[in-house]
């Protein structure tokens, strides 16, 4: 039971972050290494916002709002700047080259984060106790973990609904299918790119903001997150929401199993799962096999 709860709590924030990554890949065809940096920005911004809230003597419940605002701020400021100021110059280039562009962005953001927030760790402990504790059988669990799971469900459902049930979502799907044809039908593709990128970054920031109470926010948090969320989207299939969900659960449970049963394997359990999935389903679990272009 503990393994399951731990695994699902880990899977929850991971799903939110990976959803952003998969959305950005689906629309912009960019596998964004800097995604982890946006996660870190979200965590740092949350630390600052919650700190300001406490300084202004806000009620502790407002720290949740502060964390949400942190994610919004990261998305609203950094995403348009990155997409318009940098990425658009590289659209249409080789996928691997784009990975390298985002690698450069990752290097830059690492230092920018250090310049803004310094190198000392931040702790956002306030929101962690807000949901009390939950008794399941003989064990007691932190309520925040369950709140996180609930949030992941809501976010996943919202993104799915937004993509499949709204006019704007259908336009995004059309661009995913073929940016060229969508453009010839009168869709403003660069606007869709910016929208998708902003939402993707918002999700990364949201994941970062809401995990900040569970970790110490230090330089380098981005590095681990990137690779784990890569594993999730590769397992699930790039560009698939269901895939991100299943991938996150697989990775969360694999990690939690390793932590509880074989701590030695914690570091690479995730990559072994990813390698196994890739060997048998090279396109990921939820990706349709595509015809080869001649």
């Amino acid at each position, binding site marked *: 039971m503990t393994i399951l709860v731990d695994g699902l709590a880990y899977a929850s924030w991971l799903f939110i972050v990976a959803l952003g990554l998969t959305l950005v890949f689906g629309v912009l065809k960019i596998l964004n290494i800097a995604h982890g940096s946006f996660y870190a920005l979200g965590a740092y911004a949350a630390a600052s916002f919650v700190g300001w809230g406490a300084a202004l003597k806000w009620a502790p419940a407002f720290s949740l709002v502060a964390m949400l605002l942190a994610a919004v701020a990261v998305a609203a400021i950094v995403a348009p700047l990155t997409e318009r100021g940098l990425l658009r110059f590289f659209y249409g280039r080789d996928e691997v080259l784009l990975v390298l562009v985002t690698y*450069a962005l990752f290097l830059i953001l690492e230092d920018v984060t250090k310049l803004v927030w310094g190198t000392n760790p931040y702790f956002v402990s306030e929101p962690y106790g807000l949901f009390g504790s939950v008794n399941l059988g003989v064990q007691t669990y932190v309520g925040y973990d369950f709140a996180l799971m609930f949030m992941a469900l809501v976010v996943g459902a919202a993104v799915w609904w937004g993509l499949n049930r709204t006019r704007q979502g259908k336009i995004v799907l059309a661009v995913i299918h073929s940016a060229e044809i969508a453009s010839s039908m009168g869709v403003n593709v660069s606007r869709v790119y910016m929208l998708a990128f902003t939402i993707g970054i918002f999700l990364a920031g949201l994941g970062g903001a809401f995990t900040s109470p569970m970790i110490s926010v230090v330089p380098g948090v981005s590095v681990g997150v990137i690779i784990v969320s890569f594993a999730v989207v590769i397992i699930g299939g790039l560009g698939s929401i269901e895939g991100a969900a299943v991938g996150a659960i697989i990775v969360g449970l694999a990690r939690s199993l390793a932590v509880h049963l074989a701590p030695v394997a914690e570091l690479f359990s995730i*990559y072994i799962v990813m390698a196994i999935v*890739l060997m048998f389903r090279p396109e990921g679990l939820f990706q349709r096999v595509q015809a080869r272009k001649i």
Partner: protein
Amino acid sequence: MRLLLAGVAAFAGLAALGWVAPRWLTYLVTMSAGHGLVSLGIVALMRGGVVPFGQGMVFAIGGYSAALLFNKAGFTDVFGLTLVGGVMATLIAAPFAPLLARYRGIFFAMLTLALSMVTYGLGMKIELLGGSDGFNVGRASVLGWRPPDAQVGYVLYLVTTGVATVMALLARVYFDSTRGLVTLAARDNELRVEYLGGSVRQAMTINFLLAAFCGGVGGALVVLSLGHIEPQFSYWTTSGEFVFVAILAGWQSVAAVFVASTVLEVVRSFSSAYFPNTWQLALGLFLLFVIRFLPRGIGSLWWKR
């Protein structure tokens, strides 16, 4: 013959430069040559249109093999250790090569990345490998001769640049050979190559093994000069730097790989000396600049074919 002369001239030039250059510069070039070998392997794969994001794996395997042989078995010859590093990296990469040859693009990159991260995890956890701190390696000998303290830097510089020159020449010969050209053709159109009777998978498998050998040799040489090894060798950021050098060099010129590797070391050394808190920022901006304005790498500056 022209190639051989160019190689001899390059090595003679480097040897003379090392004799007069200050110690920090010879060390910097030694590191660049060792790292450049790993990127040379990436270029061999890039010519076929795939980019591995986990070459840190073979780099680390080469390094660990040489270091363990040195510390546990007392074998200290630099050439022998380098060869063992290359061979071990090739042997460990061999079971994965036919599998990886089926993958392209992002999937190839990610699968190699996964392998390198598993290696990293093993390096962190296995006690024999020294855990997260790694371990130190003593001073290597050269064909039975133990260089004195004052000369050891220059000797390792000569060995590393010498091995790098030989590997660079061999790489050029391979790139211009039939299989090398099949690789290049696969980059343009794989199906066409298959219809003409070439085997893309075979070419990719062999390229991966050659890249592993290059990486292992590079790892062994770097460890012997650095005197230390740690799991970080296999971390994805290390692999990222190797890809960075390969992209900076472009896939045409072999010499460009070593120029690019030196450029990276110089940028890294100077920016970490003068802007210790923002050297990654400087590196990132530099990388963006290269991708934007020299998309085919610095090799394209003199390679017009």
